[in-house]
């Protein structure tokens, strides 16, 4: 694949925790504008891979390329400022703060002029307006109160706020960690639709999920992780769900030629 189409890639990542080898020469490629699902059995090292890409873990060796440029993330903030946003499984929202405040948490907008620069006063009107726009662009908001505390929202709505926060700041890559794990059927479907909406904006998405129907519904390609490295990447239109699970668990060997 040509590097122009690849937004984020990793080569030969290693990470050891004592005797445990969490990443054993792992490779990774995310294409521009795709939804790449990452699946793997528990202990396959996929969360270490994802943490490495989101800056939460620093690999022992190996390289990460973002837009063809080598990057070295030392913490989630450095990954975020490079354009990689992560929506954590527990969402990392502040429950008693409002929707708008959560979306702008840590990246608040200040008033123009002296009020903002010297007195550091926030521009709440602008933040509320942008939060409202962002949510309605994502099809998440009709009329309601942007000042509503997040804890009054349902699980799916919170997921929506977390995703909105991830896409509001011009990110290139959004990592979604088990976005449907805690949700009911209807709300899960809504989140799947939301992922499609985000993809339609040209943002590349890494989706970590154990839910095979969800993965097969939304993913363009599926990265199967096994024993600390990429086993293969499959096309969900060509390979069935049971084969994917068989590959993941080692019951089946991948075809020699990677798709």
């Amino acid at each position, binding site marked *: 694949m040509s590097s122009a189409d690849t937004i984020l890639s990793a080569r030969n990542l290693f990470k050891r925790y004592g005797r445990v080898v969490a990443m054993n020469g792992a490779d990774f490629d995310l294409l521009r504008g795709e939804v790449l699902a990452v699946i793997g059995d528990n202990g396959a090292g996929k969360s270490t891979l994802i943490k490495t890409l989101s800056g939460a873990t620093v690999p022992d060796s190996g390289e990460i390329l973002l837009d063809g440029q080598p990057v070295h993330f030392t913490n*989630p*903030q450095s990954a*975020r400022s490079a354009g990689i946003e992560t929506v*954590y499984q*527990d*969402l*990392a*929202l*502040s*429950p*008693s*703060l409002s*929707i708008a*405040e*959560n979306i702008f*948490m*840590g*990246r*608040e907008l*200040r008033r123009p002029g002296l009020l903002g620069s010297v007195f*550091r*006063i*926030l521009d*709440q009107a602008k933040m509320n307006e942008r939060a409202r726009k962002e*949510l309605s662009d994502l*099809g*998440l*908001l*009709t*009329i*309601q*109160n942007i*000042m*509503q*505390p997040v*804890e*009054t*929202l*349902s699980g*799916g*709505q919170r997921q929506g706020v977390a995703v909105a*926060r991830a896409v509001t700041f011009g990110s290139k890559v959004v990592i979604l960690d088990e976005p449907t794990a805690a949700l*009911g059927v*209807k*709300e899960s479907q*809504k989140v799947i639709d939301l992922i499609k909406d985000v993809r339609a904006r040209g943002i590349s998405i890494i989706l970590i999920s154990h839910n095979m129907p969800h993965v097969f519904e939304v993913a363009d390609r599926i990265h199967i992780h096994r024993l600390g490295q990429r086993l293969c990447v499959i096309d969900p239109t060509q390979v069935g769900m049971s084969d994917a699970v068989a590959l993941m668990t080692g019951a089946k060997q991948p075809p020699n030629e990677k798709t």
Partner: protein
Amino acid sequence: MTSHDSTPAGTAISTKTADRENAPLADLTTFGRGRQTLLDRFQNLVHAQPAAIPLLVLILAIAAFGLLLGGKFFSAFALTLILQQVMIVGIVAVAQTLVILTAGIDLSVGAIMVFSSVVMGHCTFRYGIPAEVAVVIGLATGALCGAVSGMLVSLVRLPPFIVTLGMWQVVLASNYLYSSNETIRSQDLAEHAPLLQFFGESFRIGGAVFTNGVIAMVLLAAFIHFVLNNTAWGRHLYAVGDDPVAAQLAGINTRGVLISVYTVAGLICAFAGWALIGRLGSVSPTAGQFTNIESITAVVIGGTSLFGGRGSVLGSVFGALIVGVFSLGLRMLGTDPQWTYLMIGALIIIAVGIDQWARRMVG
């Protein structure tokens, strides 16, 4: 404690979830809330305006004592007397609120206040430093004490209760050692360093008597309220108290926020120390023995949650005023002062009960 995580487990939640399942899909996908009962609205009010209930209680208490006591209580003089009486606790409660909003607690507020006032007095009289400079040194002392607590809490990761319990003893002992338990007399202050008594100066508007300290308390509370709601620092303070892990993942420097909060709280306590000199007239190392407990009482009655992330400094000032209204009102009624403590105790428990209820049922 991760009290936030455990909240969705109540039975009330499960019935609400059931309602959601039956709702049309549109309700799930939008931020619409559907029908709200009166109780829901009340809960939202408790949520959105934590100072609303204490304000209501304050107004009702003033009205009740006004009806019982008539003009004796319901006069500009008596009402402004309450302001003067709660001024010190009100200022310290503002500091205490900042710490409690981060899910911490500061038991050393009273000790820092007294120590700072002693430093101001002794710098002036023992070393002959100009009063203006002595005040600055006193304020810096308070801020430093707070910064030490803040660093122990955030960098060494010790529990705030233990850190400030220790600081309370350390600062109080330093206070006695440094001052040799000597009081600086009011006449000496008035003669040589009237600036130290500045917050005790009063002026009249009709029957109302205001001291500079009362004005300072109101301005301070208004200022801190504004800062909490209109600066990133203020919002981060709430976020850190709400869920420190989430705040950190959102890119907030949680350690920096914690250190700054304890430092600012120490600074405000030192300021209260300055106001204390005005209130007492003298500099006394034995003053303010109960200020830490009184400030926590004001904060809790004022609707701020001990679990962090929820509350307001205005509520704490209202809380201090509620205590002041009950104290003066019951004294004027000629009841045994123990009734005051009994009422305050009941109010504390009710206030915490309401907070817990709001946490459990919303969401």
